[in-house]
């Protein structure tokens, strides 16, 4: 029994003899019992006294037990509702359980049966309350964990980067040749680790619903141009041609500028990693009556057909362990989650040795 008080049981039934019988049987076992022979009054009593368990007769002259169940289970999610029903109406007992009742007690019943159902109901309630509080605790821990990671994992990385900055400044003259090379390799690896942390944080935030996105009407052409500007220096260094083929007057979509920019930059970035010098990356836009399409094609090494279904999985690497760690392993996972959040789709098609094409599909926005 909770907090040392006897559990309180409410019984709603139009038959006085049932009320009396239940009261006697349950009080004998140490429960506190309140009763009502009228549906509306019973609901009022439930709201005032907040009993742990309520037995409700399904068939009463002035009101439907089913309505009471719906009302009470909505108002008081923790209450355990048990239906009292005649043998002939098992079907309606099942219906009541769908509406939120936990169990049913067919008439006629013995005091022992009543006590057994009551005991089980009280145990169920305690388990439910414990499960709820565990779930809340788990959610709270997940949120705290994200905050913890963002501070505890970022700060050392930031500090190491700051030390390297100061090292380069105060010892720049003597750090030549191999020494300078070692420093720049360290910087790259730290940057990769930082990208991994950031991507992982983004995905955790999307999953627990704290990733902030402002959805506004957007012109994807603009964002793609912006993304291509960012990626152009890299492509030039790798001698890859980055070109666009835009549909004129592309319809707008509803989206978050910042996260879509990162999605495009991610996919173009991926393409640069697997496209050899002299290759080509083409960004195309198109639309039909329902969707706006962005297609990013490369002339790279391609992805084997049997690997294609897994490329959006976290840390999946097409070429397995042989593949040099080129990114966080979360870029495509992030992109897919962002596309999901835009009610969009992302798909990949590929031919080994010929290239890969990513198609991103956004619901077209019709502005009134």
């Amino acid at each position, binding site marked *: 029994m909770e907090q040392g008080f006897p559990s309180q049981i409410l019984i709603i039934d139009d038959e006085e003899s049932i009320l009396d019988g239940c009261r006697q049987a349950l009080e004998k076992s140490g429960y506190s019992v309140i009763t009502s022979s009228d549906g509306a009054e019973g609901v009022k009593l439930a709201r005032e006294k907040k009993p742990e368990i309520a037995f409700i007769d399904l068939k009463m002259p002035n009101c439907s037990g089913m309505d009471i169940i719906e009302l009470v289970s909505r108002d008081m999610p923790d209450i355990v509702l048990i239906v009292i029903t005649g043998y002939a109406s098992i079907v309606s007992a099942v219906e009541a359980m769908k509406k939120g009742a936990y169990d049913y007690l067919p008439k006629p019943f013995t005091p022992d049966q009543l006590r057994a159902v009551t005991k089980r109901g009280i145990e169920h309630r305690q388990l439910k309350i414990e499960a709820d509080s565990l779930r809340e605790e788990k959610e709270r821990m997940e949120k705290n964990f994200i905050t913890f990671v*963002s*501070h505890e994992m*970022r*700060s050392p990385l*930031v*500090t190491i*980067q*700051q*030390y390297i*900055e*100061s090292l*380069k*400044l*105060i010892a720049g003259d003597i750090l030549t040749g191999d020494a300078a090379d070692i420093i720049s390799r360290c910087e790259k690896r730290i940057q990769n680790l*930082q990208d991994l942390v*950031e991507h992982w944080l983004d995905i955790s935030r999307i999953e627990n619903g704290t990733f*902030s996105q402002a959805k506004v009407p957007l012109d994807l052409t603009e964002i793609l141009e912006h993304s291509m500007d960012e990626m152009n220096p890299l492509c030039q260094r790798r001698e890859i041609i980055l070109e666009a083929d835009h549909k004129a007057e592309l319809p707008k979509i509803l989206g978050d500028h910042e996260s879509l920019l990162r999605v495009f930059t991610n996919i173009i970035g991926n393409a640069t990693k697997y496209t050899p010098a002299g290759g080509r990356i083409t960004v195309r836009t198109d639309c039909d009556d329902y969707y706006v399409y962005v297609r990013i094609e490369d002339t790279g090494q391609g992805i084997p057909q049997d690997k294609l279904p897994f490329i959006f999985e976290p840390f999946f690497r097409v070429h397995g362990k042989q593949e040099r760690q080129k990114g966080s392993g979360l870029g495509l996972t992030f992109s897919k989650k962002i596309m999901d959040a835009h009610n969009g789709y992302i798909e990949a098609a590929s031919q080994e040795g010929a290239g890969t094409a990513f198609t991103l599909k956004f619901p077209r926005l019709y502005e009134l």
Partner: protein
Amino acid sequence: MDSKKKVLLIDDDKDFLMATKLILEKGGYEVFLAEDGKSGVEMAKSVNPNLAIVDMMMETWSEGFNVVSKLRTSETGKQIPLIMLSAVDLQGPYQSFEPPEDLPTVDLVLHKPIKADDLLRYVGQLVG
């Protein structure tokens, strides 16, 4: 005799303080360090710096914000340029589109880590 310009650094990460101090000293500044907001505000009174650099996220995520408020209402802190530091994409009030009206003004917000030459250039511009 040239008197060095004084920079006060307030951050709860000792190593970050050390790394940033090395850069500023190389740039010819005299650097004072405080590891928490309270001692930072105290130190501002005693050393009279020409510029203060305050980390946003110390004991709490917005402690730097309190420090800036206190500096801005103190005699010494009123005049000097202030730089706020924040970790990457920290969604603090300085990043939001509509900052609250009582937000104390800083002269510059920089993201950690800061490139050595960027830091020296910005500090140089602010202390003149």
